[in-house]
């Protein structure tokens, strides 16, 4: 009996609350926008995790020292190949300028 009264009171309260808060129309594509925001938030979190992992990896000496060595080695190798080609070209130009009849 007591419970029946309570239910009747709750229904009344709900009706009163609905009346106090006027129902408004949801904007178009409301659900899709909410879903998109949630997805975007998840992707954003994933990129933060990825960046943090990369930053942590970069700071580890076990990774950082070999990386530095590889970069120095690659730079030296490519630089010397490029330099040799350049040196060859300079030497060729000098030789040709000495022995070839210039455009008179």
């Amino acid at each position, binding site marked *: 009996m007591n419970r029946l009264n309570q239910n009747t009171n709750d229904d009344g309260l709900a009706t009163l609350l609905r009346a106090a808060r006027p129902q408004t129309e949801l904007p178009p594509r409301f659900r899709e926008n909410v879903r998109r925001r949630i997805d975007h938030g998840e992707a954003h979190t994933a990129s*933060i995790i990825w*960046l*943090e992992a*990369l*930053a*942590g990896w*970069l*700071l580890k000496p076990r990774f950082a020292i070999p*990386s*530095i060595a590889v*970069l*120095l*080695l*690659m*730079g*030296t*190798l*490519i*630089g*010397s190949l*490029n*330099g*040799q080609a*350049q*040196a*060859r070209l*300079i*030497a*060729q130009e*000098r*030789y*040709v300028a*000495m*022995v*070839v*009849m*210039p455009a*008179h």
Partner: protein
Amino acid sequence: MRKPVLIVLIALAVGAALFGGAFYCARYFCVQPVATSTDDLDWLRMEFNLTEAHLAKIRVLHEGYLPICEANCRNIALKKRELKQAEAAGTNATETLRQLQAEVTALRTKCQTEMLAHFEEVSLAMPPEQGQRYLAEMKRLTLGSHEQVEESMSGASEHGREHH
């Protein structure tokens, strides 16, 4: 959020600086000795892997040829100046101008013939395979450019004919 981005950016900058520094240092040490050298035969040594004995033989030929080359260039320059003066003076003697032009052409032919003879001499002073490569390369560098000009001019004239 900011700290990992900063670490990655700094790591990228440091990596780029290390790579760039190593690249330019290595390049500098390869180019500098050749750029400051005064030896005309550096290219032959580098390109054709010549021994000192071959290089010594070629140096004699090279030093013997340089005065000939200079004399040819000087003679052509003098003759060209003479031709220009004759043209500037408004000489109507077509025969004189024609003769001067023929002399310039003859001097150029002589210069080119002697240059090619020198290339052949040098190629013979090298090991056979390298000598052939040298001769082909020198012909490409000297006659090749003339042929390109001729081809481009004949191409241009044919192109012109199509339109006119």
